[in-house]
């Protein structure tokens, strides 16, 4: 009889666990669709959108550019080490441009922007939440979704592809400068090798990833900010959660999108 009771309690615990997981997942999904809806229904705030594009896109340029530059440089050196062992140095430009455009530029830019702008979004909205500024917005007939979330969401979805494209160019330039100035490659041959094998899809898949990552970053920032509670500590937690969860989601979706493009 006692065993039977214990099994029931155990099953109850499992049930409760799944219930709470589904409940929170369902709520996140609901929140996500409310956010998307706010991007396409009035009222629109073009001025705020421009501000956010400036903050997320333009101000992240130095960080993303530096990351791409050093990654391109390191990539050239490392692949030289490997390829020179079986005299395949001519493949280096190709390896550099493919790794940068398809993989490294989007992922690294995504992670950098998650740490930079995602954290800022969570902290800003979280502070507004715990200091009742979001409540104050509502009393001024302003929908906080349209006013706070939509500009950030749209701005990051637009900005990330731009950042990644710049990262592509800078990363390829990093590889080029190492190969030409340190490893004594012929500059013209390097460039020809770079562009000869590059296909539209390589760059395009990277930009698609970038948009998805932008959506992840701003959504996670907004979600955790909007649900912050309990003063400064709560805002700190929201920031941490937003960066951690968007980083993990970026890596997960990176694999997912790569495998989708792979099977095309």
């Amino acid at each position, binding site marked *: 009889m006692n065993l039977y009771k214990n099994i029931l309690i155990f099953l109850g615990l499992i049930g409760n666990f799944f219930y709470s997981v589904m409940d929170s997942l369902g709520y996140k999904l609901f929140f996500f669709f409310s956010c998307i809806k706010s991007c396409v229904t009035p009222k629109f705030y073009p001025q705020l959108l421009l501000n956010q594009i400036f903050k997320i896109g333009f101000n992240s340029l130095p960080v993303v550019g530096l990351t791409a530059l050093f990654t391109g440089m390191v990539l050239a050196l490392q692949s030289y080490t490997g390829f020179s062992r079986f005299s395949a140095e001519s493949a280096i430009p190709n390896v550099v441009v493919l790794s940068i455009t398809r993989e490294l530029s989007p992922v690294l830019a995504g992670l950098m922007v998650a740490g930079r702008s995602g954290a800022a979004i969570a902290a*800003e909205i979280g502070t*507004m939440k715990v200091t009742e500024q979001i*409540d*104050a917005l509502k*009393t001024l*007939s302003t929908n906080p979704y349209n006013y706070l979330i939509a500009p950030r969401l749209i701005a990051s979805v637009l900005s990330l592809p731009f950042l990644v494209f710049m990262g592509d160019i800078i990363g390829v330039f990093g590889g080029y400068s190492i190969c030409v100035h340190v490893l004594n490659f012929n500059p013209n041959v390097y460039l020809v090798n770079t562009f000869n094998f590059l296909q539209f899809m390589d760059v395009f898949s990277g930009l698609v990833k970038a948009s998805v990552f932008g959506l992840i970053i701003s959504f996670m920032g907004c979600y955790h900010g909007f649900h912050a509670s309990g003063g400064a500590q709560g805002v700190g937690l929201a920031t941490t959660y937003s960066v951690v969860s968007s980083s993990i989601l970026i890596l997960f979706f990176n694999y997912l999108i790569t495998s989708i493009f792979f099977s095309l």
Partner: protein
Amino acid sequence: MKPVVKISNLKKKFRNKEILNDVNLMIYESQSLAIIGESGSGKSVLTKCISGLLDFDFGNIRYKDIYSLKNSNEKVKNQHISKFGILFQNAALFDSMNIYQNITFGNKKANILKILDAVGLNKDCLDTYPANISAGMQKRVGLARAIVTDPEILILDEPTTGLDPIMSIQINKLLKKLVAKQKLTTITITHDMSSVYEYADKVAFICDGNINWYGDIQDLKKTTNIKLKNFINGKIED
């Protein structure tokens, strides 16, 4: 007098902590209601439920027999919220905007000079930011922002807390004027009994999640309710 908002059997829980259980209250047109009660008794939570900023668990809030908040859709709720002007307990000014933008919030028709004058602010402060002004000034800016939209119902969450005695008297006078002249319906949360006597018509005393006492301001001093008496006179129950 016609009731504007009717609150019936309102319950509100946070997780397992019951804050409000069975609150019944009427807010009448152009009447000034003071809500008093201990710290943590749920005064702010009650006004947030009334204005639609917080969802409640049970009971109902009706607006003039036109609609009720229970089971209402998002649109009705938003309409309801925008009927209120609220001075929040911590002012809740937008810290990314300067004082001018805080008060007008894109509303070009606002007569900013008149409003500034009404709340006793100088126009020199218009381009400073909320972080750079004192708490008392923040309260006044919050009040200006609450009245600039000509709300139907004004909610003031501790308007005089943190102000010096002179400023408190000024704010009380101003509120009295607003209530008398514009026939504004106001709900004031306060610990400051002098502001209650200054301009409140009705008083609601909230205790243990209920409206423990409700009545005219004249009857407040004659009350035999021990808890209320102790609260007003600042005594501690032995």
